[in-house]
Protein backbone atom coordinates (compact mmCIF):
# COMPACT_ATOMS: atom_id res chain seq x y z
CA UNK A 1 0.00 0.00 0.00
CA UNK A 2 1.05 3.57 -0.37
CA UNK A 3 0.10 7.03 0.77
CA UNK A 4 -0.90 9.43 -1.97
CA UNK A 5 -0.64 13.19 -2.00
CA UNK A 6 -4.44 13.29 -2.35
CA UNK A 7 -4.66 11.56 1.01
CA UNK A 8 -2.22 14.02 2.56
CA UNK A 9 -4.19 16.96 1.20
CA UNK A 10 -7.45 15.46 2.46
CA UNK A 11 -5.91 15.08 5.91
CA UNK A 12 -4.69 18.68 6.07
CA UNK A 13 -7.98 20.04 4.79
CA UNK A 14 -9.94 17.98 7.29
CA UNK A 15 -7.69 19.07 10.16
CA UNK A 16 -8.04 22.74 9.15
CA UNK A 17 -11.80 22.29 9.38
CA UNK A 18 -11.55 20.65 12.80
CA UNK A 19 -9.27 23.40 14.13
CA UNK A 20 -11.76 26.03 12.94
CA UNK A 21 -14.58 24.10 14.59
CA UNK A 22 -12.66 23.58 17.85
CA UNK A 23 -11.10 27.05 18.00
CA UNK A 24 -12.99 28.13 21.11
CA UNK A 25 -12.42 24.78 22.81
CA UNK A 26 -8.63 24.92 22.27
CA UNK A 27 -8.50 28.56 23.31
CA UNK A 28 -10.45 27.76 26.45
CA UNK A 29 -8.01 24.99 27.41
CA UNK A 30 -5.15 27.43 26.87
CA UNK A 31 -6.81 30.21 28.88
CA UNK A 32 -6.79 27.91 31.90
CA UNK A 33 -3.01 27.33 31.96
CA UNK A 34 -1.46 29.44 29.21
CA UNK A 35 -2.20 32.71 27.49
CA UNK A 36 -5.50 31.78 25.89
CA UNK A 37 -4.71 32.01 22.20
CA UNK A 38 -3.96 28.44 21.04
CA UNK A 39 -7.19 27.97 19.07
CA UNK A 40 -7.02 31.46 17.58
CA UNK A 41 -3.39 30.98 16.51
CA UNK A 42 -3.87 27.46 15.12
CA UNK A 43 -6.94 28.54 13.17
CA UNK A 44 -5.09 31.51 11.67
CA UNK A 45 -2.27 29.09 10.78
CA UNK A 46 -4.38 26.43 9.12
CA UNK A 47 -6.44 28.95 7.18
CA UNK A 48 -3.09 30.15 5.81
CA UNK A 49 -2.14 26.53 5.10
CA UNK A 50 -5.24 26.09 2.93
CA UNK A 51 -4.37 29.20 0.93
CA UNK A 52 -0.73 28.13 0.44
CA UNK A 53 -1.64 24.54 -0.43
CA UNK A 54 -4.06 25.51 -3.20
CA UNK A 55 -1.41 26.14 -5.87
CA UNK A 56 0.66 23.03 -4.97
CA UNK A 57 -2.03 20.49 -4.17
CA UNK A 58 -1.13 18.32 -7.16
CA UNK A 59 2.51 18.07 -6.10
CA UNK A 60 4.13 15.23 -4.14
CA UNK A 61 3.36 14.51 -0.48
CA UNK A 62 6.67 15.96 0.74
CA UNK A 63 5.95 19.28 -0.95
CA UNK A 64 2.49 19.42 0.62
CA UNK A 65 3.93 18.81 4.08
CA UNK A 66 6.77 21.32 3.67
CA UNK A 67 4.36 23.96 2.35
CA UNK A 68 2.18 23.34 5.38
CA UNK A 69 5.17 23.74 7.69
CA UNK A 70 6.30 27.00 6.12
CA UNK A 71 2.75 28.38 6.24
CA UNK A 72 2.48 27.57 9.95
CA UNK A 73 5.91 28.97 10.78
CA UNK A 74 5.01 32.22 9.05
CA UNK A 75 1.54 32.71 10.46
CA UNK A 76 1.02 31.15 13.88
CA UNK A 77 3.60 32.85 16.09
CA UNK A 78 3.88 31.96 19.77
CA UNK A 79 5.21 28.50 20.53
CA UNK A 80 2.69 26.66 18.36
CA UNK A 81 4.09 28.10 15.12
CA UNK A 82 7.64 26.78 15.45
CA UNK A 83 6.49 23.47 16.93
CA UNK A 84 3.79 22.53 14.42
CA UNK A 85 5.82 24.19 11.67
CA UNK A 86 8.84 22.06 12.53
CA UNK A 87 6.67 18.92 12.68
CA UNK A 88 5.50 19.37 9.09
CA UNK A 89 8.82 20.69 7.74
CA UNK A 90 10.73 17.69 9.08
CA UNK A 91 8.06 15.21 7.96
CA UNK A 92 8.11 16.77 4.50
CA UNK A 93 11.89 16.74 4.35
CA UNK A 94 11.92 13.06 5.30
CA UNK A 95 9.75 12.25 2.28
CA UNK A 96 11.95 14.33 0.04
CA UNK A 97 10.20 14.59 -3.34
CA UNK A 98 9.21 10.93 -3.55
CA UNK A 99 6.33 10.33 -5.94
CA UNK A 100 5.46 7.12 -4.13
CA UNK A 101 5.36 6.96 -0.34
CA UNK A 102 5.15 3.57 1.32
CA UNK A 103 3.36 3.03 4.64
CA UNK A 104 6.67 2.61 6.41
CA UNK A 105 8.08 5.78 4.83
CA UNK A 106 5.03 7.72 5.93
CA UNK A 107 5.33 6.56 9.53
CA UNK A 108 9.04 7.38 9.41
CA UNK A 109 8.17 10.88 8.19
CA UNK A 110 5.80 11.38 11.14
CA UNK A 111 8.54 10.14 13.46
CA UNK A 112 10.94 12.67 11.95
CA UNK A 113 8.30 15.32 12.66
CA UNK A 114 8.09 14.28 16.30
CA UNK A 115 11.88 14.30 16.60
CA UNK A 116 11.87 17.86 15.25
CA UNK A 117 9.25 18.92 17.78
CA UNK A 118 11.31 17.44 20.62
CA UNK A 119 14.49 19.15 19.44
CA UNK A 120 12.73 22.48 18.99
CA UNK A 121 10.78 22.45 22.24
CA UNK A 122 13.25 20.40 24.29
CA UNK A 123 10.29 18.70 25.89
CA UNK A 124 10.28 15.16 27.23
CA UNK A 125 7.29 12.95 27.81
CA UNK A 126 5.22 13.91 30.86
CA UNK A 127 6.23 17.58 30.63
CA UNK A 128 2.56 18.24 29.74
CA UNK A 129 3.05 19.21 26.10
CA UNK A 130 2.05 18.03 22.62
CA UNK A 131 4.82 15.41 22.91
CA UNK A 132 2.57 13.54 25.36
CA UNK A 133 0.10 12.89 22.53
CA UNK A 134 2.56 12.48 19.63
CA UNK A 135 5.16 10.23 21.25
CA UNK A 136 2.87 7.41 22.41
CA UNK A 137 0.97 7.65 19.12
CA UNK A 138 4.06 7.08 17.02
CA UNK A 139 5.28 4.37 19.34
CA UNK A 140 1.96 2.57 18.79
CA UNK A 141 2.15 3.18 15.03
CA UNK A 142 5.61 1.68 14.88
CA UNK A 143 4.43 -1.36 16.82
CA UNK A 144 1.41 -1.97 14.57
CA UNK A 145 3.50 -1.42 11.47
CA UNK A 146 5.98 -4.00 12.74
CA UNK A 147 3.14 -6.47 13.18
CA UNK A 148 2.20 -5.98 9.56
CA UNK A 149 -1.09 -4.15 10.16
CA UNK A 150 -2.55 -2.16 7.25
CA UNK A 151 -2.03 1.60 7.39
CA UNK A 152 -5.65 2.26 8.32
CA UNK A 153 -5.24 0.20 11.49
CA UNK A 154 -1.82 1.66 12.19
CA UNK A 155 -3.16 5.20 12.13
CA UNK A 156 -6.34 4.38 14.04
CA UNK A 157 -4.22 2.81 16.77
CA UNK A 158 -1.95 5.87 16.75
CA UNK A 159 -4.93 8.20 17.17
CA UNK A 160 -6.20 6.08 20.07
CA UNK A 161 -2.79 6.27 21.75
CA UNK A 162 -2.70 10.04 21.21
CA UNK A 163 -6.11 10.33 22.85
CA UNK A 164 -4.91 8.35 25.87
CA UNK A 165 -1.77 10.49 26.03
CA UNK A 166 -3.81 13.68 25.81
CA UNK A 167 -6.07 12.61 28.67
CA UNK A 168 -3.04 11.57 30.70
CA UNK A 169 -1.79 15.19 30.65
CA UNK A 170 -4.64 16.22 32.99
CA UNK A 171 -2.97 15.18 36.27
CA UNK A 172 0.49 16.29 35.12
CA UNK A 173 2.33 19.40 36.33
CA UNK A 174 3.59 21.47 33.39
CA UNK A 175 7.39 21.62 33.10
CA UNK A 176 7.62 23.51 29.80
CA UNK A 177 6.11 26.64 28.30
CA UNK A 178 4.11 29.36 29.99
CA UNK A 179 2.05 26.82 31.94
CA UNK A 180 5.20 25.89 33.87
CA UNK A 181 5.04 29.24 35.68
CA UNK A 182 1.83 28.05 37.32
CA UNK A 183 3.58 25.13 39.03
CA UNK A 184 1.03 22.97 40.84
CA UNK A 185 -1.80 25.15 39.56
CA UNK A 186 -1.36 23.54 36.11
CA UNK A 187 -2.46 20.19 37.56
CA UNK A 188 -6.02 19.16 36.68
CA UNK A 189 -6.07 20.80 33.24
CA UNK A 190 -5.74 19.04 29.89
CA UNK A 191 -2.85 20.37 27.82
CA UNK A 192 -4.04 22.39 24.80
CA UNK A 193 -1.05 21.37 22.64
CA UNK A 194 -1.58 17.68 23.36
CA UNK A 195 -5.23 18.22 22.46
CA UNK A 196 -4.54 19.83 19.09
CA UNK A 197 -1.97 17.08 18.37
CA UNK A 198 -4.53 14.39 19.16
CA UNK A 199 -7.07 16.08 16.87
CA UNK A 200 -4.43 16.17 14.13
CA UNK A 201 -3.77 12.43 14.35
CA UNK A 202 -7.48 11.60 14.58
CA UNK A 203 -8.05 13.68 11.44
CA UNK A 204 -5.26 11.73 9.75
CA UNK A 205 -6.76 8.39 10.66
CA UNK A 206 -10.29 9.44 9.65
CA UNK A 207 -9.22 10.96 6.35
CA UNK A 208 -7.23 7.90 5.29
CA UNK A 209 -10.03 5.59 6.27
CA UNK A 210 -12.43 7.61 4.16
CA UNK A 211 -10.39 7.38 0.97
CA UNK A 212 -9.58 4.30 -1.06
CA UNK A 213 -5.86 3.59 -0.87
CA UNK A 214 -3.82 3.13 -3.97
CA UNK A 215 -2.48 -0.38 -4.29
CA UNK A 216 1.03 -0.41 -5.67
CA UNK A 217 1.81 -4.06 -5.14
CA UNK A 218 -0.23 -7.02 -6.11
CA UNK A 219 -1.90 -8.53 -3.12
CA UNK A 220 -2.34 -12.25 -3.05
Amino acid at each position, binding site marked *: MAVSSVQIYTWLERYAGIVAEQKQYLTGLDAAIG*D*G*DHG*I*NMDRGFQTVLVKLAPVRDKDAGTLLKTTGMAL*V*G*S*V*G*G*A*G*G*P*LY*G*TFFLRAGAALDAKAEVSDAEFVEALEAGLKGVQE*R*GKANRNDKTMVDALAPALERARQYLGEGAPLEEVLAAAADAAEEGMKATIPL*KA*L*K*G*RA*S*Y*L*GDRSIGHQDPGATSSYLMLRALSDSLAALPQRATTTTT
Partner: protein
Amino acid sequence: MAEAAVTTRLKKLINTPETEVKDALAGMVAAHGDLIRVEYDPNVIIRKDAPRKGKVGLVSGGGSGHEPMHGGYVGLGMLDAACPGAVFTSPTPDQMARATAAVDGGAGVLHVVKNYTGDIMNFEMAAELARGEGAKVNAVITNDDVAVQDSLYTAGRRGVGVTVLLEKIVGGCAEAGADLETVTTLAKKVNANGRSMGMALTSCIVPAAGKVTFEIADDEMELGIGIHGEPGRERTKLKSADEIAEILTSTVVKDLPYKRGDEVLAFVNGMGGTPLIELYVVANAVNRYLQKEGIKPARWLVGSYITSLEMAGCSVTLLKLDAETTKFWDAPVHTPALRWGV
Protein backbone atom coordinates in the same frame (compact mmCIF):
# COMPACT_ATOMS: atom_id res chain seq x y z
CA MET B 1 -32.20 33.99 15.51
CA ALA B 2 -29.15 32.12 16.59
CA GLU B 3 -26.80 35.00 17.17
CA ALA B 4 -27.47 38.66 16.77
CA ALA B 5 -24.62 40.53 15.14
CA VAL B 6 -23.91 42.73 18.12
CA THR B 7 -20.47 44.24 18.21
CA THR B 8 -19.39 46.22 21.20
CA ARG B 9 -16.72 48.74 20.51
CA LEU B 10 -13.82 48.39 22.92
CA LYS B 11 -13.04 51.60 24.77
CA LYS B 12 -9.61 51.87 23.16
CA LEU B 13 -8.10 54.10 20.51
CA ILE B 14 -8.12 51.42 17.84
CA ASN B 15 -10.03 50.83 14.64
CA THR B 16 -10.18 47.06 14.80
CA PRO B 17 -8.06 44.60 16.79
CA GLU B 18 -6.89 43.07 13.50
CA THR B 19 -5.54 46.36 12.10
CA GLU B 20 -4.03 47.79 15.30
CA VAL B 21 -0.41 46.72 14.74
CA LYS B 22 -0.27 47.85 11.11
CA ASP B 23 -2.04 51.15 11.86
CA ALA B 24 0.50 51.85 14.60
CA LEU B 25 3.44 50.91 12.34
CA ALA B 26 2.17 53.31 9.69
CA GLY B 27 1.93 56.03 12.35
CA MET B 28 5.45 55.33 13.55
CA VAL B 29 6.95 55.68 10.10
CA ALA B 30 4.90 58.85 9.50
CA ALA B 31 6.29 60.39 12.67
CA HIS B 32 9.84 59.02 12.57
CA GLY B 33 10.57 58.51 8.89
CA ASP B 34 13.92 60.26 9.39
CA LEU B 35 15.06 57.41 11.65
CA ILE B 36 13.24 54.28 10.53
CA ARG B 37 11.57 52.57 7.61
CA VAL B 38 8.85 49.96 7.86
CA GLU B 39 8.19 46.86 5.77
CA TYR B 40 4.91 44.95 5.87
CA ASP B 41 4.15 41.24 5.44
CA PRO B 42 6.41 40.34 7.08
CA ASN B 43 6.27 43.32 9.46
CA VAL B 44 9.69 44.76 10.27
CA ILE B 45 10.88 48.14 11.55
CA ILE B 46 14.34 48.87 10.12
CA ARG B 47 16.84 51.60 10.79
CA LYS B 48 16.63 54.01 7.90
CA ASP B 49 20.27 53.70 6.87
CA ALA B 50 20.60 49.92 7.36
CA PRO B 51 22.53 47.88 6.45
CA ARG B 52 25.65 49.71 7.58
CA LYS B 53 28.78 48.17 6.12
CA GLY B 54 31.03 46.54 8.71
CA LYS B 55 28.68 47.21 11.64
CA VAL B 56 27.22 44.34 13.67
CA GLY B 57 23.45 44.38 13.22
CA LEU B 58 21.24 44.30 16.31
CA VAL B 59 17.80 42.73 15.92
CA SER B 60 15.14 42.28 18.54
CA GLY B 61 11.44 41.62 18.55
CA GLY B 62 8.51 40.36 20.50
CA GLY B 63 4.80 40.70 20.85
CA SER B 64 3.32 44.14 20.36
CA GLY B 65 1.76 45.98 23.30
CA HIS B 66 5.07 46.76 25.06
CA GLU B 67 5.76 50.04 23.25
CA PRO B 68 8.09 51.78 22.96
CA MET B 69 9.91 48.42 23.13
CA HIS B 70 11.16 47.32 20.59
CA GLY B 71 10.33 49.48 17.57
CA GLY B 72 10.93 52.70 19.49
CA TYR B 73 14.54 51.68 19.98
CA VAL B 74 15.46 51.36 16.32
CA GLY B 75 17.95 53.98 15.24
CA LEU B 76 21.45 55.28 15.81
CA GLY B 77 23.22 53.68 18.75
CA MET B 78 20.57 51.10 19.50
CA LEU B 79 18.67 48.50 17.38
CA ASP B 80 19.01 48.06 13.63
CA ALA B 81 15.65 46.31 13.33
CA ALA B 82 12.68 45.23 15.40
CA CYS B 83 10.03 42.60 14.65
CA PRO B 84 6.60 43.34 16.08
CA GLY B 85 4.31 40.33 16.57
CA ALA B 86 0.59 40.42 17.22
CA VAL B 87 -0.26 41.88 20.64
CA PHE B 88 1.48 39.75 23.28
CA THR B 89 2.32 37.09 20.65
CA SER B 90 5.84 36.30 19.49
CA PRO B 91 6.66 37.41 15.94
CA THR B 92 7.38 34.74 13.35
CA PRO B 93 10.73 33.53 11.94
CA ASP B 94 10.11 35.05 8.52
CA GLN B 95 9.97 38.50 10.15
CA MET B 96 13.21 37.90 12.02
CA ALA B 97 14.92 36.38 9.00
CA ARG B 98 13.93 39.41 6.91
CA ALA B 99 15.15 41.78 9.63
CA THR B 100 18.43 39.89 9.85
CA ALA B 101 19.00 40.07 6.10
CA ALA B 102 18.03 43.75 5.99
CA VAL B 103 20.59 44.83 8.62
CA ASP B 104 23.49 42.47 7.89
CA GLY B 105 26.36 44.70 6.84
CA GLY B 106 28.80 41.79 6.66
CA ALA B 107 29.87 41.84 10.32
CA GLY B 108 27.13 39.51 11.56
CA VAL B 109 23.91 40.00 13.47
CA LEU B 110 23.03 39.65 17.16
CA HIS B 111 19.48 38.64 18.09
CA VAL B 112 18.26 40.02 21.42
CA VAL B 113 15.62 37.59 22.67
CA LYS B 114 13.49 37.79 25.80
CA ASN B 115 13.10 34.47 27.59
CA TYR B 116 9.66 33.32 26.55
CA THR B 117 9.13 29.88 25.01
CA GLY B 118 7.60 31.26 21.81
CA ASP B 119 10.18 34.02 21.31
CA ILE B 120 13.07 31.60 21.82
CA MET B 121 11.80 29.03 19.34
CA ASN B 122 10.87 31.56 16.66
CA PHE B 123 14.25 33.30 16.92
CA GLU B 124 16.02 29.91 16.80
CA MET B 125 14.22 29.06 13.57
CA ALA B 126 15.02 32.50 12.18
CA ALA B 127 18.70 32.08 13.05
CA GLU B 128 18.72 28.71 11.26
CA LEU B 129 17.13 30.29 8.19
CA ALA B 130 19.59 33.21 8.23
CA ARG B 131 22.62 30.95 8.72
CA GLY B 132 21.35 28.89 5.79
CA GLU B 133 21.68 32.08 3.74
CA GLY B 134 25.25 32.49 4.92
CA ALA B 135 24.73 35.09 7.68
CA LYS B 136 26.67 35.03 10.95
CA VAL B 137 24.05 35.12 13.71
CA ASN B 138 24.48 35.06 17.49
CA ALA B 139 21.74 35.31 20.08
CA VAL B 140 21.56 36.59 23.63
CA ILE B 141 18.63 35.75 25.89
CA THR B 142 17.49 38.16 28.59
CA ASN B 143 16.07 36.60 31.77
CA ASP B 144 16.20 39.19 34.53
CA ASP B 145 12.84 38.80 36.25
CA VAL B 146 13.50 37.75 39.86
CA ALA B 147 9.79 37.12 40.44
CA VAL B 148 10.01 33.83 38.56
CA GLN B 149 12.00 31.02 40.10
CA ASP B 150 14.68 29.80 37.75
CA SER B 151 14.59 26.05 37.98
CA LEU B 152 14.52 22.91 35.90
CA TYR B 153 10.80 22.85 36.47
CA THR B 154 9.84 26.07 34.69
CA ALA B 155 10.67 27.75 31.41
CA GLY B 156 13.05 29.94 33.44
CA ARG B 157 13.07 33.61 34.33
CA ARG B 158 11.31 36.04 32.01
CA GLY B 159 13.12 38.76 30.12
CA VAL B 160 11.89 42.20 31.16
CA GLY B 161 13.49 45.61 31.99
CA VAL B 162 17.10 44.64 31.37
CA THR B 163 16.21 44.13 27.71
CA VAL B 164 15.85 47.90 27.21
CA LEU B 165 19.14 48.69 28.96
CA LEU B 166 20.92 45.93 27.03
CA GLU B 167 19.66 47.22 23.68
CA LYS B 168 21.01 50.68 24.52
CA ILE B 169 24.40 49.59 25.87
CA VAL B 170 25.08 46.88 23.29
CA GLY B 171 23.78 49.20 20.58
CA GLY B 172 26.39 51.76 21.62
CA CYS B 173 29.10 49.13 21.44
CA ALA B 174 28.00 47.96 17.96
CA GLU B 175 27.84 51.57 16.78
CA ALA B 176 31.45 52.00 17.89
CA GLY B 177 32.46 49.25 15.48
CA ALA B 178 33.03 46.27 17.78
CA ASP B 179 32.95 42.80 16.22
CA LEU B 180 30.20 40.21 16.74
CA GLU B 181 32.01 38.30 19.49
CA THR B 182 32.73 41.47 21.49
CA VAL B 183 29.15 42.65 21.12
CA THR B 184 27.79 39.23 22.14
CA THR B 185 30.06 39.02 25.19
CA LEU B 186 28.98 42.48 26.34
CA ALA B 187 25.32 41.55 25.87
CA LYS B 188 25.75 38.49 28.07
CA LYS B 189 27.51 40.57 30.70
CA VAL B 190 24.70 43.14 30.79
CA ASN B 191 22.09 40.42 31.20
CA ALA B 192 24.12 38.71 33.93
CA ASN B 193 24.45 41.98 35.90
CA GLY B 194 20.80 43.05 35.68
CA ARG B 195 17.75 42.09 37.74
CA SER B 196 14.14 43.30 37.70
CA MET B 197 10.84 42.95 39.49
CA GLY B 198 7.45 44.41 38.61
CA MET B 199 4.04 44.93 40.14
CA ALA B 200 0.56 45.76 38.86
CA LEU B 201 -2.27 47.87 40.23
CA THR B 202 -4.63 47.02 37.39
CA SER B 203 -4.90 44.52 34.54
CA CYS B 204 -4.96 45.20 30.81
CA ILE B 205 -7.22 44.31 27.89
CA VAL B 206 -5.74 42.49 24.90
CA PRO B 207 -7.88 43.83 22.03
CA ALA B 208 -8.39 40.41 20.39
CA ALA B 209 -9.53 38.98 23.73
CA GLY B 210 -11.75 41.98 24.53
CA LYS B 211 -11.66 41.49 28.28
CA VAL B 212 -9.22 42.05 31.13
CA THR B 213 -6.40 39.51 31.35
CA PHE B 214 -6.96 39.05 35.09
CA GLU B 215 -9.36 40.33 37.74
CA ILE B 216 -7.95 42.36 40.58
CA ALA B 217 -9.90 44.10 43.35
CA ASP B 218 -9.65 47.86 44.00
CA ASP B 219 -7.69 47.30 47.22
CA GLU B 220 -5.29 44.67 45.83
CA MET B 221 -2.02 44.57 43.88
CA GLU B 222 -0.10 41.79 42.14
CA LEU B 223 3.57 41.54 43.06
CA GLY B 224 5.97 39.99 40.56
CA ILE B 225 3.77 40.52 37.52
CA GLY B 226 5.19 39.78 34.06
CA ILE B 227 4.74 42.09 31.09
CA HIS B 228 1.76 40.11 29.73
CA GLY B 229 -0.25 40.07 32.93
CA GLU B 230 1.13 36.68 33.96
CA PRO B 231 0.73 36.11 37.67
CA GLY B 232 3.68 36.79 39.90
CA ARG B 233 4.73 35.95 43.40
CA GLU B 234 1.68 37.04 45.36
CA ARG B 235 -1.55 38.95 45.44
CA THR B 236 -1.60 41.31 48.44
CA LYS B 237 -3.44 44.30 49.86
CA LEU B 238 -2.44 47.58 48.33
CA LYS B 239 0.46 49.36 50.05
CA SER B 240 2.05 52.81 49.82
CA ALA B 241 4.49 53.67 47.02
CA ASP B 242 7.36 53.70 49.52
CA GLU B 243 6.50 50.23 50.76
CA ILE B 244 6.02 48.86 47.23
CA ALA B 245 9.32 50.38 46.06
CA GLU B 246 11.13 48.87 49.03
CA ILE B 247 9.68 45.39 48.37
CA LEU B 248 10.70 45.52 44.69
CA THR B 249 14.13 47.06 45.27
CA SER B 250 15.11 44.88 48.21
CA THR B 251 14.08 41.70 46.35
CA VAL B 252 16.14 42.78 43.33
CA VAL B 253 19.16 43.81 45.46
CA LYS B 254 19.23 40.53 47.38
CA ASP B 255 18.94 38.42 44.24
CA LEU B 256 22.17 39.28 42.40
CA PRO B 257 23.17 40.42 45.07
CA TYR B 258 24.15 44.04 44.65
CA LYS B 259 26.68 45.03 47.30
CA ARG B 260 27.78 48.09 49.22
CA GLY B 261 29.97 50.17 46.93
CA ASP B 262 28.39 48.93 43.69
CA GLU B 263 27.50 51.51 41.08
CA VAL B 264 24.19 50.80 39.38
CA LEU B 265 21.88 52.06 36.69
CA ALA B 266 18.48 52.38 38.38
CA PHE B 267 15.55 51.98 36.00
CA VAL B 268 12.06 52.79 37.27
CA ASN B 269 9.64 51.72 34.55
CA GLY B 270 5.95 52.39 34.13
CA MET B 271 3.68 49.56 32.90
CA GLY B 272 1.76 51.83 30.54
CA GLY B 273 -1.06 53.18 32.70
CA THR B 274 0.92 54.90 35.44
CA PRO B 275 1.68 58.64 35.30
CA LEU B 276 5.26 59.89 35.47
CA ILE B 277 4.66 61.71 38.77
CA GLU B 278 4.01 58.34 40.43
CA LEU B 279 7.15 56.87 38.87
CA TYR B 280 9.18 59.70 40.43
CA VAL B 281 7.57 58.95 43.80
CA VAL B 282 8.81 55.38 43.35
CA ALA B 283 12.24 56.60 42.17
CA ASN B 284 12.56 58.62 45.37
CA ALA B 285 11.95 55.51 47.49
CA VAL B 286 14.28 53.40 45.32
CA ASN B 287 17.00 56.01 45.78
CA ARG B 288 16.52 56.10 49.55
CA TYR B 289 16.77 52.32 49.76
CA LEU B 290 19.92 52.19 47.62
CA GLN B 291 21.59 54.98 49.62
CA LYS B 292 20.83 53.13 52.84
CA GLU B 293 22.44 49.97 51.42
CA GLY B 294 25.50 51.89 50.23
CA ILE B 295 24.71 51.19 46.57
CA LYS B 296 25.34 54.15 44.29
CA PRO B 297 22.76 54.88 41.59
CA ALA B 298 25.20 56.39 39.09
CA ARG B 299 22.68 56.53 36.24
CA TRP B 300 18.88 56.68 36.12
CA LEU B 301 16.13 55.94 33.63
CA VAL B 302 12.59 56.84 34.73
CA GLY B 303 9.58 56.48 32.44
CA SER B 304 7.40 53.98 30.60
CA TYR B 305 9.84 52.07 28.38
CA ILE B 306 8.66 48.44 28.53
CA THR B 307 4.93 48.38 29.00
CA SER B 308 1.99 46.05 29.19
CA LEU B 309 -0.72 47.95 27.27
CA GLU B 310 -2.73 50.09 29.73
CA MET B 311 -1.70 48.22 32.86
CA ALA B 312 -1.00 50.47 35.84
CA GLY B 313 2.04 49.56 37.88
CA CYS B 314 5.79 49.71 37.73
CA SER B 315 8.95 47.69 37.67
CA VAL B 316 12.37 48.31 39.17
CA THR B 317 15.49 47.19 37.32
CA LEU B 318 19.04 47.49 38.60
CA LEU B 319 22.09 47.01 36.41
CA LYS B 320 25.57 46.84 37.94
CA LEU B 321 27.76 49.25 36.01
CA ASP B 322 31.43 49.20 35.13
CA ALA B 323 33.51 51.50 32.94
CA GLU B 324 32.54 49.70 29.72
CA THR B 325 28.78 49.57 30.34
CA THR B 326 28.72 53.17 31.62
CA LYS B 327 30.57 54.39 28.54
CA PHE B 328 28.12 52.74 26.15
CA TRP B 329 25.09 53.82 28.20
CA ASP B 330 26.29 57.40 27.87
CA ALA B 331 27.07 57.05 24.15
CA PRO B 332 24.87 58.97 21.67
CA VAL B 333 21.48 57.49 20.83
CA HIS B 334 18.83 58.71 18.41
CA THR B 335 15.69 56.58 18.21
CA PRO B 336 11.97 57.37 18.37
CA ALA B 337 11.90 56.71 22.13
CA LEU B 338 15.42 57.47 23.43
CA ARG B 339 17.58 60.37 22.38
CA TRP B 340 20.65 61.93 23.88
CA GLY B 341 24.17 62.98 22.90
CA VAL B 342 23.15 63.96 19.35
